[in-house]
């Protein structure tokens, strides 16, 4: 049976350079649904990205910057992007050369559709 997130994840994974896309529970860091390329460790990404996103969201609020809408982590061998709504976080793992602008637009659009 298809989950309600399958089409969101499929749209994100179709973007060039995207290795994994996941819907994660922000509080638990547990995968709700995912679309992963071979070799991607969904559980690890979910736990770490949800923790980062949560801390970023709380930091933005503590700094009186308002609601965090998008978070991006650039590393030597890839990027992690996260966008959340309510208790869910949309996470994308992408290659360093991926078009982050496009991914960001799609993620913010998709996050708006999260329950």
């Amino acid at each position: 049976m298809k989950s309600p997130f399958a089409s969101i994840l499929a749209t994100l994974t179709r973007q060039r350079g995207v290795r994994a896309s996941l819907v994660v529970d922000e509080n638990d860091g547990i995968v709700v649904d995912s679309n992963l390329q071979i070799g991607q460790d969904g559980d690890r990404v979910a736990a770490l990205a949800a923790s980062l996103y949560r801390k970023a969201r709380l930091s933005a609020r503590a700094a009186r910057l308002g609601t965090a809408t998008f978070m991006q982590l650039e590393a030597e061998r890839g990027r992690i992007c996260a966008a959340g709504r309510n208790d869910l976080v949309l996470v994308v793992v992408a290659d360093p050369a991926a078009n982050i602008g496009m991914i960001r637009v799609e993620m913010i659009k998709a996050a708006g559709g999260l329950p």
Partner: protein
Amino acid sequence: MSITAVEPWVEIPLRKFVEEARTVLGLLLHPSGQVIAQFGFVRAVDVMSACALAAAIHASAGELGKQLDGKPFRGLHHPGRDRQLFLAEAATPRGTFIFLTVFDQESSLGLVRLYFDEFCKSLAAAAPSAPRRVEPVLEERFEHELNRNLAALFGRE
């Protein structure tokens, strides 16, 4: 955070787990209830109670799993309002141990599970190869050994 261990080989894997998973309390114990290592506890009596309860919960969950699923449940997660509890088995060449940890909003179940898997691997790698002598769960020396372990952890007789 203060980490104390009755068996020294446990200390490095446990310290790494605490630093990475950011949990607030932890216990490694033998399935009989004998404490092996702890962090975050202040009083020996709390360790003693937690060990007894963890051993009982583990035994009950194991038996329940056997009856429902044909094999023992090996992990348990209980989410409280402010704090959550995670209890699971860690297998090593020295035998199987029970690991109990409590975490708050600084961590998450996903992080605890992730770092627990790594803890199990490093614990198994650090364990001395000589097998531990298998002893009956309740023997005459149980209380004596329990008190000895608590004294080793909290530095008093």
